[in-house]
């Protein structure tokens, strides 16, 4: 039988997304083997993130300052807003270092089967930002799946009457992949998003 404190840690770890019983047990034994200081800094980091991180009032990004570092950066172009489903999607786009605009986090995607409708995601906040002026382009970077696409269509519908260009991230072929393996949908979307060279 596993000692209760250890079982307790394993149980807590299994509550994390993507962590099954086996991984939780491996993580728990790993923590057990490491020095106390390491466990302490992990525990502190977890508590700190809960007490110090909140949502930026402009873009919904996770931040410890108001507004967030991106909204507050004068070198960024506030006239281009990139719309993402979740705050962690920002990191993926930031990695490219090519995007110099700002973000808007929807806090989800339209998902009728989960009962998530237009009122449950923050399109309202986006519309308000566009209405306040100085926004030239909204780039919709929701996920390339049915829910992400429905969300993009809804956003486009809500922005239609406003003076702003709305674009959607291209659906393309994965770099390093073989054309041979592309399915018809991916191929059709890649053709649609072709550019001049």
């Amino acid at each position, binding site marked *: 039988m596993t000692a209760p404190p250890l079982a307790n840690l394993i149980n807590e770890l299994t509550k994390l997304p*993507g962590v099954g019983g086996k991984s939780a047990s491996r993580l728990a034994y790993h923590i057990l083997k490491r020095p106390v200081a390491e466990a302490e800094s992990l525990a502190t980091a977890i508590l700190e993130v809960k007490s110090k991180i909140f949502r930026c009032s402009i873009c919904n990004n996770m931040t410890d300052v108001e507004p967030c570092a991106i909204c507050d950066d004068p070198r960024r172009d506030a006239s281009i807003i990139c719309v993402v489903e979740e705050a962690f999607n920002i990191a993926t786009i930031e990695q490219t270092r090519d995007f110099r605009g700002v973000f808007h986090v929807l806090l989800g995607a339209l998902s*009728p*089967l*989960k009962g998530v409708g237009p009122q449950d995601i923050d399109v309202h906040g986006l519309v308000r930002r566009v209405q306040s002026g100085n926004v030239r382009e909204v780039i919709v970077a929701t996920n390339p799946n049915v829910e992400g696409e429905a969300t993009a*269509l809804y956003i486009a519908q809500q922005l239609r009457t406003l003076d702003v260009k709305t674009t959607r991230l291209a659906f393309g072929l994965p770099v*390093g992949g073989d054309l041979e393996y592309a399915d018809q949908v991916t191929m059709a979307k890649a053709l649609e998003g072709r550019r001049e060279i």
Partner: protein
Amino acid sequence: MKPKRTEAIVLHTIAVRERDKLVVFLTPEHGKRKGWAYGARGARSRFGASLEPLAKINIGFIEKESEEVVRIESVDLIRSLFPAQQNLLGSIAATYIAETVDTFAIADDPSELIYRLLDRTTEALLAGATPLAVVAYTEVWILRLSGILPSLKNCIVCDQPLARPLRYDARVSGFVCENCTTRDADVIPNDVADALDAIMKFPVAEFAARAESDAVIFELRSLAGALRRHFLGHELKSFDILASLAGSR
């Protein structure tokens, strides 16, 4: 173990772990099944767009007797609904149709008729049929195939042939004749009764081509909705979202 191969339509998918999908799909011969698609959410997944909701596919899966969830081995896309899902109402209507079928189809119970209903209705959406007409058609037919739709020909109380106008009595969940009717029975307008007959008689594409008025579609959907809620004891999850988007067109 040899994989089973069959045609199927994806009803819905659930994102699981980092890169996997749990896929609920309907087949003509094996009924409704659940399967793991490992790595399906990765950018270079071999499954690509073929495991998105309402895709029609050829699927190969491995089934272990002790496990409820099969393992999806291979998928070839026959037809994607993506072009129809690039219209907001079309996309939400498709999701609603999938939920309707998912709710009434019984796991592991082969139902070729339910499969064909899903196949034809999604095909109609792709061909550009009015989403709400296709939805109404699905709502009525799923009741029929589940044995919930009361007779349109004979009185539910006395079995005498029904005449126009049709009268629906919610207390007995059925259509009643002139003699059995009560003050609580709703008189169904003749154009709605005609549309109901057309749904029973014609394939979905032909019904959609009749271009019934919004009012008739609304009445048909209310009637089907009353029967469905009476049977299920609740409403479908995507019902309100479809209603809110259908109104804001």
